[in-house]
């Protein structure tokens, strides 16, 4: 899967949780879920569950802790799909 497609799919996943619409519109590899998108930290677990459902993968506790920005999310998804 190319990067643009993956970022676009992540954008759809995080959309309901993102409180900063401008940051969501400009989502890119360097976007941080909490600092940029202003996602409530409690909702990060929901983002992860939605990612798991979308790609039919299981994200372990260690990977969960790292999944705080788009770049990390992409790496984790790609490694699980590989």
């Amino acid at each position: 899967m190319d990067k643009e497609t993956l970022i676009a799919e992540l954008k759809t996943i995080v959309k309901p949780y993102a409180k900063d619409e401008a940051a969501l519109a400009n989502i890119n590899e360097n976007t941080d879920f909490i600092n940029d998108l202003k996602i409530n930290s409690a909702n990060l677990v929901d983002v992860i569950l939605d990612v798991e459902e979308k790609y039919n993968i299981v994200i372990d506790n260690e990977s969960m802790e790292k999944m705080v920005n788009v770049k990390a999310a992409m790496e984790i998804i790609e490694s699980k799909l590989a």
Partner: protein
Amino acid sequence: MLETATYNTMSNRVVITGLGIAAPNGVGIPAFTHAIKTGTSGIRHDPQLAELQFSCQIAGKPDVPEALQLQYLDPLELRNFNSNGILYGLIAGIDAWKDAGLKITEGNDPDWDSGVIFGAGSSGLDKLREAIYKVDALQVRRLGSTVVPQTMASGISAWLGGKLGLGNQVSTNSSACTTGAESLLMAFDRIKNGQATRMLAGSTSDAGPYIWGGFDALKVCTYKHNDCPEKGSRPMSASASGFVPGSGAGAFLLESLESALERGATIYAEVLGGHVNSGGQRGDGTMTAPNSMAVQRCITQAMAQAGVTGMDIDAINGHLTATGKDSLEIENWSKALGRAGKDFPYINALKGMVGHCLSGAGSIELVASVLQLNEGFLFPNINCEDLHPEISAIIDDACVPRELINVNLNIIAKASFGFGDVNACVILKKYING
């Protein structure tokens, strides 16, 4: 720098300046007022209870379509939302706040002078059921973020505190069917003692088979009216055969008289005082039955605190559930007030229209009481064509209005009694300038 509020150390007078409601026969004050004046029942046949083979297959649930839910919760909050008690409480609580003409706190500072005491008997039972199934299926990690805020006992006060930005006490009380009346008195005390300027009070009850099942099993609900739901809830009637389970929430904004006058707020009523107590499950009191000594004492202590006598009471809003205990309640009121026969005040029971809304009952019925004082009417006791002979032996038939009566009322006494042998009585007075 921290700002510290200086509170009046005198005993503040406390008034009600806002109301909100999500009741089975009306959501929102205008709809509810119309319903109670016209004696409109909110009891319906409940297909889910029938499917689950409940003895009682009728119930009272507020009607809250999704468009209405979206006025109180945003689409993200409504994702995986499954706690109807919290929903009813939010509707009633936020409405009461706005009805009082108060703004939702903006910016980073909470409103230090305003708090909430909003009671509940349980929280998010449907949500809890979902969570239990997942946990038992080894899927604890799939619970997501929404279980705790929807199932913690203090869920409703936490949601309201956050929505409104309240910085004073934010708590949930729980005392079975006394909960709503108790919440009002706890809020009253806090303002009276100068610890807060405004308190949102009220209570809520979940709807559904998982809250009502235990009562169905206790055989305290009627099973004789499954084909005529609106006739099912019959307080004070000779043909009463148990209560009809209900649900919903009522809310009131309590405020110091000083603050209400300063803001130029509409004053619905003054809280003169009240009392909460317990029969200790001694004497004739048990987990499920009231100790009459304690009930009478609760009423007389409430009147003493309010500085009124039995003769000052114009009307009573009873607990009156439509079980075999209604005549005992009338006897207790009669003894506590020292009044009987034609000398007894008017008395009415809202449960005929909404059923027994359990932990939401006290607050829903208090909202009805405040509306009666403010607008000068007594709502009709529906389904009471056949007043129980044990009741007519104590009080005159005319004390139990069957039709709407427009009458100027000065003081209403409202009591609620609950499992655990707990009681609460509130004395409300019409507010006339000064």
